[in-house]
């Protein structure tokens, strides 16, 4: 297990706008291996929700099966979670989201859960632009069944037992851009500074926000020769830019050199200030995003940060033209048309 929660908390823990401390956003104790990247991501989700002052009970956490899919129990303990079946998180999240459009949806998945058994559902959740944050905790292996290669393992990457993966990897970020995802980011579980603003922006994004997070498996895939180890990822990360998430247009300006700054406005008026490091890349241009990802790959680098964003495209509720009231809150009078309607239907069938 990663850690034991301290019973004593500092009496003057900082509070957010709701008057909550970080404690209100934590979950139960993780049962993952000590040093697991997934626990760092959980902590980042806690931080992002705390900073955004989101009511924890208005968040829904849904996952599939695998190490990553266990994590919803380890963050936001006052939120409902659904640890469903392998590869099917997107469909359960779709149904949940249809029932109540007024909550924040976190879908947590892994590379096995998304890139293999759940590939179909991943693809179609993106097509529908479901309003959710879709996080893949990507470690290139099947941890719970003891380290088999997953579909995101790089060709030539060595497992702990020395086995060299002979197959091409599935590049989830490229695929997401290709499929028309409206928010695609990539990050590293060890880079909290980058991940927190990304998750905050993902929450505020209207539509499917996909974040592929490299999250090394300390037990089965942290060995020399693995391209998903802590050392390898640290050495091969190349950020698209530095970013600040700015809620509701507060005036916070980082002093970035002129010409390298991009500002993306999200649907609720919050903004993402990007200090671009990759010069030939534009986060609102799909072709440029695909180019940047592929060029980084060709250099054996992992491009991190916000890769692509498209705002102003309707989510699934918008496409289906659903009413503003959550469907699970409609009254019986609004749902049941009544006998008078049946009488006219009966008459039409005679």
């Amino acid at each position, binding site marked *: 297990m990663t850690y034991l929660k301290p019973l004593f908390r500092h009496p003057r823990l900082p509070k957010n706008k709701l008057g909550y401390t970080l404690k209100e956003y934590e979950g*139960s104790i993780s049962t993952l291996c000590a040093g697991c990247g997934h626990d760092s991501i959980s902590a980042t989700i806690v931080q992002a929700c705390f900073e955004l002052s989101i*009511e*924890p*009970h*208005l968040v*829904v*956490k*849904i996952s599939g099966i695998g190490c990553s899919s266990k994590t919803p*129990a380890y963050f936001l*303990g*006052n939120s*409902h*979670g*659904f*640890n*469903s*079946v392998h590869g*099917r998180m*997107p*469909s*359960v*999240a*779709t*149904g*949940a*989201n*249809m*029932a*109540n459009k007024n*909550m924040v949806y976190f879908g947590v998945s892994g590379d096995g859960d998304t890139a293999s058994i759940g590939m*179909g*559902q991943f*693809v*179609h959740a993106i097509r*529908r632009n479901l309003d959710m944050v879709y996080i893949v905790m990507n470690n290139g292996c099947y941890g719970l069944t003891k380290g088999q290669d997953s579909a995101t393992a790089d060709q030539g990457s060595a497992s702990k037992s020395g086995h060299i993966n002979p197959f091409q990897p599935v590049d989830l970020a490229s695929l997401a851009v290709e499929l028309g995802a409206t928010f695609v980011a990539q990050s590293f579980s060890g880079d909290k500074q980058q991940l927190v603003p990304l998750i905050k922006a993902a929450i505020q994004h209207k539509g499917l926000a996909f974040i592929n997070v490299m999250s090394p498996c300390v037990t089965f895939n942290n060995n020399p020769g693995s391209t998903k180890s802590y050392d390898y990822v640290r050495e091969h990360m190349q950020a698209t830019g530095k970013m600040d998430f700015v809620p509701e247009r507060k005036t916070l300006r980082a002093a970035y050199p002129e010409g390298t700054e991009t500002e993306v406005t999200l649907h609720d008026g919050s903004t993402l200030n990007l200090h671009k490091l990759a010069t030939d890349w534009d986060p609102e241009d799909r072709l440029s995003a695909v180019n940047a990802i592929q060029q980084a790959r060709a250099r054996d680098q992992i491009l991190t940060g916000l890769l692509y964003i498209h705002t102003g495209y309707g989510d*699934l*509720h918008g496409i*289906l*033209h*659903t*009413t*503003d*009231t959550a*469907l*699970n*809150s*409609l009254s*019986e009078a*609004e*749902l*049941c*048309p*009544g*006998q008078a*309607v*049946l009488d006219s*239907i*009966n008459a039409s*069938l*005679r």
Partner: protein
Amino acid sequence: MIDSHVLPRPEARVNDFVARFANVNGTGSASANFLFAKAIFRMGIPVTPKNIFPSNIQGLPTWYEVRVSEKGYLGRREGIDLLVAVNAQSMKQDIASVREGGYLMYDSTKKLAPELIREGIHYLGVPMMELANEHFTNPRQRQLFKNIIYVGALAVLLQIDYAVLETLLQEQFAGKEKLIAPNLKALRLGMDHAREHFDYPLDFYLERRNLIGDKILVDGNSACGLGAVFGGATVMAWYPITPSTSVAEAFEKYASRYRVDPETGKNRFAVIQAEDELAAMGMVIGANWNGARALTATSGPGVSLMNEFIGLAYFAEVPAVLIDVQRAGPSTGMPTRTQQSDITLAAYASHGDSKHPLLFPATPKECFEMTAACFDLADRLQTPVILMTDLDLGMNDHLSEPFHWPEGQRYDRGKVLSEEELDAMGRYGRYLDVDGDGIPYRTYPGTHPTKGAFTTRGTSRDEYAVYTEDSAAYKRNMDRLLLKWETTKGLVPKPEFYQKHNQSDWGMVFFGTSTFSSEEARDLLAARGMNLDALRIKAFPFGTETEAFVREHPLIFVIEQNRDGQMRSLLIQEMQLSPRQLISVLNYDGMPITADQIALQIADYFKQTNTLSHDVSETSI
């Protein structure tokens, strides 16, 4: 001696015949044939039309069979009295299918080949193509009006009320009035030809009656879609598959009419065509978990795919409603033919110990009511509930009692805790059996800032929804689910009895679309001195009523439309019966079961086993 598959019936000349239309798929015959059936319905005479269609869009043979029964028998019977043969591909087999002394109407534009002439039946030649070509110029109209011409000829031969046909055509083309005149013209061409060339009426014909009352003519799938709207479903997730597709289409049609916010024009429902049946079921579970009422509709292949999710919903205790419009399996089977062959699949869907409530509607009215009831049951029991209909019920029009929504009927959302209730109680345990009925209390996400949240999972957990691998906790949970199963028996619809008190040692058990043929078979057998008590199953698990019926009849015939006697297996398994007590009466050729098949199998059993007294068996069949 039984030497025929048709049971002799007293000769009836009025309102008692079977007409079959042999057409080519995609030639517009469906609306002409429906016009024929609907006209008989409007004349107040019980009628049952059935479509026998191929898995094909255009070109293959398709049949439409109309049974007319003064006595109100709605099942199929053997023996075709009149066949309208307008499909060259199937002509030979169609001619062979007419009963001795029956009639064959054909297109006499071309002379019939000599090998198509059969002794012992009457030929009614109508030059359909010639008349259509002579009076219409548009090629599509020539094609379509061939069909109306034969309806016209039949109107004379069988004495269909012309005013009824005229009204029906006016209704059908309301808004496209210029189509009414040519349709009426085609109708009259057929009528005139029949009057000039044939003796009419035939030796069986129609007479206006008042036997329909306020009944309606509708297909089961439309009724299911409507039932889901009335039952409060807001989310429908589905994947196209015959014969269930029209359930989703009906839901969307009725929801678009009756579930739109009048002020904003926005939808109070969401229909999602999923990427496959797995995803459809996942969406249904997600939506129900989050407090909406959601359903999916599929057929056997879809249920196979949904097994994993059905098990999750059972174990994690999430409500879900699934409509299984059964078709002939296994595998892709016969996609456009009917069967009742998903019974064991649905009853025990998924790995591990699991079982699920099933409801068996027999009429469109029951499709409507039971679909709505499925939502109450699923919410109350927090488990997937499956409506077991089939292609025959779902896709064919049936004479049915009208739809009714009782005044004051309210949804039963089951045990769901509100914010106030959570505040007023001690520690909340999602899987605590507070009431002793095996049903714990749910909370919807977002109910309370600090109480009532939990993680739903398909893994074992304790009463507080905390993951555990403790054997005792796992077993407690499995035993509680079994207790919930016992509670289920008292909540599902009770069976229907056909007698006040048991009168016979022999019983018949049937369900769903086997009902009407079984009822007729029971009368046929009774007329021959074989009296059987009868029970119609409406739900699984079986309650005390079914148990009592089974205990009181040493010999029971279980009538169903599958090869392996699946309902019989379920009865034996769930009530620990001796297999010798239950005798299977089966039909599994993909066609709706007939009364004759049932009666003959039962009579044959009696004969083979010398069950009947000497004089009864001699005088019977």
